[in-house]
């Protein structure tokens, strides 16, 4: 099976506080997953669970403490050539489209700049043709786009513009970090439909980072649920979200407000008070809020086990100890 991107035991440690009272937070703790070509992979979890840190490491904004990111069988690196090669294949879309673009700059400039940087066109005419093609793919017209400032677009439109910009290099993978959380609920569907269309028509893979499980369910093929730096559950979307195994996934699943007044929330939940405390917890990080907590959970980090093709990190389950599908990468790397 071919893999487009492999994340291999990625770890990132941040130090907080002064020299005297330093605490170390493992924002990503041995995170491993892979993305296949033409697949939408969702990485979900609440804020502060480390999902953005993973995205930033993949994009090279953050240096991993350990672990490897392998794209099309090659490792990304620091040298300029490798970076250019990597960014041509992997493009990013960010949360806030109004923060993505400089408000005093016309948006076309970004498009021409990208074309120039990657030498995608030989002359102006070709460049415009390319831009038109990409705008068309996201459902915008060149006329309505040309010569405008970011403030002249609505949030949903500007997010489309930012997707069109990412598509210029014909990437094989889009890293979308919370692309719809700033967009109105009614327009979210149009953005995620666009990801579906790109996947089906152009074979683009998407790493869809979100806390919105409803849209994740709607577009993704596979999903990984992150909690305080760990992946706690990973597998095909139908299995993970329709029949969640990890108590945290169950909590997430129940907390999605359903547009059905007959099915309101009835149970009360406990929220974490301070993030640090959960990060620093020994054993299972979810033990403080878990409804099924056992003695064992407080001291011992659970192993990753496979239950019914789904990877689960919880003491409740005993199953085949996960033999990681990315073991072959490790062999190749060493």
């Amino acid at each position, binding site marked *: 099976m071919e893999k487009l991107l492999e994340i291999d035991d990625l770890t990132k440690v941040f130090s907080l506080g002064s020299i005297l009272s330093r605490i170390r937070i493992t924002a990503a703790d041995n995170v491993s997953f892979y993305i296949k070509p033409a697949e939408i992979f969702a990485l979900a979890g*609440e*804020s*502060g669970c480390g999902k953005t840190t993973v995205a930033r490491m993949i994009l090279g904004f953050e240096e991993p403490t350990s672990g490897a990111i392998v794209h099309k069988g090659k490792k990304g690196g620091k040298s300029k050539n490798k970076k250019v090669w990597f960014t041509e294949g992997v493009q990013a879309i960010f949360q806030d489209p109004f923060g993505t673009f400089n408000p005093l700059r016309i948006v076309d400039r970004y498009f021409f700049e990208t074309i120039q940087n990657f030498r995608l066109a030989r002359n102006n005419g070709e460049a415009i043709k390319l831009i038109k093609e990409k705008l068309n793919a996201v459902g915008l017209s060149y006329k309505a786009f040309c010569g405008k400032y970011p403030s002249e677009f*609505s*949030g*949903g*439109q500007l997010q489309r513009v930012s997707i069109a910009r990412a598509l210029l290099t014909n990437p094989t993978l889009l890293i979308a970090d919370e692309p719809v*959380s*700033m967009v*109105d*609920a*009614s*327009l*979210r*569907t*149009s953005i*995620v*439909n666009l990801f*579906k269309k790109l996947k089906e028509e152009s074979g683009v893979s998407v790493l869809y980072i979100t*806390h*919105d*499980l*409803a*849209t994740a*369910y*709607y577009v993704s093929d596979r999903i990984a649920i992150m909690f305080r730096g760990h992946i706690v559950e990973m597998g095909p979307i139908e299995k993970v*979200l*329709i029949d969640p195994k990890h108590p945290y996934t169950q*909590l*997430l699943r129940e*907390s*999605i*407000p*359903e*547009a*059905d*007044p*007959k099915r*309101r*929330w009835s149970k*009360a*939940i406990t*929220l*974490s*008070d*301070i*993030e640090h405390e959960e990060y620093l917890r020994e054993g299972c990080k979810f033990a403080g809020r878990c409804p099924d907590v056992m003695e064992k959970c407080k001291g011992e980090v659970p192993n990753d086990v496979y239950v019914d093709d789904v990877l689960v990190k919880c003491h409740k389950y005993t199953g085949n100890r996960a033999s990681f599908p990315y073991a072959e990468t490790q062999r190749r790397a060493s």
Partner: protein
Amino acid sequence: MNQTILRTEQLKAFYVLDVLGSRKVVKAVNGVDLEIMKNEVYGIAGESGCGKTTLLNALYGAIEPPLRLIGGKVYYRVNDEEIEVSSLNAEEKRRLRWEYVSYVPQGSMSVLNPVIKLKESYRDFLDSHVSGKTKDEAFEIAKRHISALGLPHKILDAYPHQLSGGMRQRVTIALAALLKPRIIIGDEPTTALDVVVQRGVVQLLKDIQDKLKNTIILVTHDMGIQANVADRIGIMYAGKMVEEATTEEIFSNPLHPYTKYLINSLPRFGDKTTRESVPGSPPSLINLPSGCPFHPRCPYVLDMCTKQMPRHASPDTNHKVACWLVGEGEDGKAS
């Protein structure tokens, strides 16, 4: 029992802007009639830029230039007497605020003063409304209030930046409920929070309403949240209320095409069929389309829609809708 607590009559609030000598009028609230009852959660839904926040400002009586009250009136019922808000002077308004009606603004995670501890914020607040309390007394009140709402009271000793976004949001809501107001107005209190925290915030709002038996006006574009908390929902589009009904009715029998889109565009579990979002984008409030403002995006557009704005028809006593398709003339009692 079911008494009106807040009522508006053809409320119109426009932003009047002077841009390089030419006058621009943004019709953000354009003739809204509301009747909000005691002890209910009234939800207002609609896309960004449809005038939801402006409507709340008008309800709260916080009308400051460039926003102007063009027409219509807002009435509060205070101690069985109807009070017209714009007739009050600044001092009377100030007294009503927080004690009678309080407001949780949008992005309230960042409304707390970042350089003082939360207990100082609470004391500031108590000082300006309840006189003659010592520092310790005020702290005691704040502590009891916070604990009663299920929040850890140690947060009073923290600075706002030490708390997570969800916690800050809940502290702000708790602050708004401190003086037991009869009406709490919440502007997108759950937006930009993730699902579990969102649920915590909704839980807190419901708890407060249970305890105080007051009215909550909740604005959010998230129909899932609306389904979960609201008793009645008003759907707003381009400064107008286009549909209003009980929550069950809105979700089981939406009549306005816009409401149908809002509800059907939501993805649901166990159903991966393609969902359509509302086509096009919201109209500019400076330059509204003629007739029904939804007609350029409406798939069922009739000739009449482009010419005249439909009035509210009531197919049912608790259901109001402004759409020509529903047939105002035949069975509707036009308002």
